[in-house]
């Protein structure tokens, strides 16, 4: 155990509060840059180049622009809910990082119910988008709000089913404990624990798809769907209100990818069995985030009923099958 971080509790909490804020803020800002650079590369162009070296100061310029804009509350809206929604999308995202084990000792508060907590708070952003869409008093936003709810209800189920499969194998909801179990080389990672369940890679794919759907990322970006709903739930938001939704989306991607790293790719464990640490966690995290960007710039958007069909007709039966298979294997092996 790393002793340097055994500080007095208030200091420790303060340190992690600042650290989490900085981590989420930095990621939200620079993932936008990464997304734009990545999109550029996928499309054979350069992406941002003008502000700073390779456009590295672009997020700063964007932030200044967003902050300097007037916050407009359209007439006839429920002003309280309208203002509350962007905050509600950001705050729970920060909470999720409380239980996230960045390395063996680096976690704000190791909780033995960490996984449950991440899911509990992770689901709130749906409420926030729905609230934003509803409070906007705009038809496109209301359609988007309705879509978001049914989309997230549909994807919460297979997501939790695969997580239950995993929990049966790990036997704990402590995220750090889950990572510790996966030590000693990549063949110990959950995604390759084929002895526990030969369908583990499929489980990961289901988890990944659900993660994309839960974070409203392309090809499941039903809430925003710019060619159909203009900007969906965010249509009436400008300035930092929109900025917060935007940051919330990236914060949620970071959470989703962190969770995938912890659950399937051994978190901070090294793939070769030596020198575990923060570096590995971040490497895996950003590789996963890159794949999310990669997916977005490859596929067209799914149709809404296609999305629901995928969940109810393919993912839920599949994850149920995996669940049953795992329990049978656990029972008899």
């Amino acid at each position, binding site marked *: 155990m790393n002793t340097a971080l055994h500080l007095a509790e208030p200091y420790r909490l303060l340190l992690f509060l600042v650290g989490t804020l900085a981590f989420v803020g930095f990621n939200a800002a620079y993932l936008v840059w990464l997304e734009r650079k990545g999109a*550029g590369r996928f*499309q054979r162009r350069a992406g941002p180049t003008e502000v700073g070296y390779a456009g590295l100061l672009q997020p700063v310029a964007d932030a200044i622009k967003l902050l300097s804009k007037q916050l407009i509350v359209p007439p006839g809206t429920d002003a309280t809910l309208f203002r509350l929604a962007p905050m509600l999308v950001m705050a729970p995202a920060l909470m999720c990082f409380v239980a996230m084990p960045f390395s063996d000792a680096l976690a704000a508060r190791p909780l033995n119910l960490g996984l449950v907590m991440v899911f509990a708070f992770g689901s709130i952003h749906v409420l926030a988008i729905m609230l934003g869409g509803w409070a906007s008093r705009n038809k496109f936003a209301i359609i988007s709000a309705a879509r978001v709810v049914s989309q997230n209800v549909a994807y919460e189920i297979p997501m939790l089913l695969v997580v239950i499969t995993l929990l049966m194998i790990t036997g704990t909801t402590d995220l750090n404990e889950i990572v510790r179990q996966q030590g000693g080389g990549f063949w110990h990672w959950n995604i390759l624990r084929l002895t526990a369940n030969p369908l583990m890679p499929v489980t990961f794919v289901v988890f990944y798809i659900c993660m994309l759907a839960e974070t409203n990322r392309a090809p499941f970006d039903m809430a925003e769907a710019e060619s159909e709903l203009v900007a969906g739930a965010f249509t009436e938001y400008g300035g930092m209100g929109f900025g917060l939704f935007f940051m919330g989306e990236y914060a949620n991607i970071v959470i989703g990818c962190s969770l995938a790293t912890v659950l399937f790719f051994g978190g901070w464990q090294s793939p070769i069995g030596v020198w575990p640490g923060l570096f590995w966690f971040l490497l895996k995290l950003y590789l996963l985030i890159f794949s999310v960007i*990669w997916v977005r*710039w*490859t596929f067209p958007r799914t149709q809404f009923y296609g999305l629901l069909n995928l969940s109810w007709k*393919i993912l839920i039966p599949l994850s149920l099958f995996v669940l049953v298979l795992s329990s049978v294997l656990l029972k008899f092996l």
Partner: protein
Amino acid sequence: MINGSLREVVAGFGSLLTGMRITLREFFKPSVTVHYPHETLPIPGRYRGHVILVRDAETGKSLCIACKSCEKACPSDCIVVEGIKREGEKRKSATAFQLDFTRCSLCGSCVEVCPVDALEFSKEYNLAGTDKTRYTQIDLLKRVEAGKS
């Protein structure tokens, strides 16, 4: 039935992977864009910028004989030519040649109709200004006299 739909799911998933393979391949290829204004492409010889008067290399003056053919041919009435017959010259020469570029559609009728080939297309495309008259009243004659061609 389950077998068939399973195959469909697998094939569909395969098509997604194929797509991702293609975009990844493109990811590592060099970019194809040109970073204007840091870099520019060569302008083709026949490029149609706004019309200008041809400068006679010997006299340094315009070849225009103020016949007004271009004025008549122009679909958008954007050329105004005035000319007089000066003492000791065989032909008329232009005293004013104004182009309203804001109305021009770059069709090239004026260039084609000119009997003495006194008009040509410029290669200018960086056109921006704070004053409208800069483009509503381009004085082509002054331009020739200033030595720009």
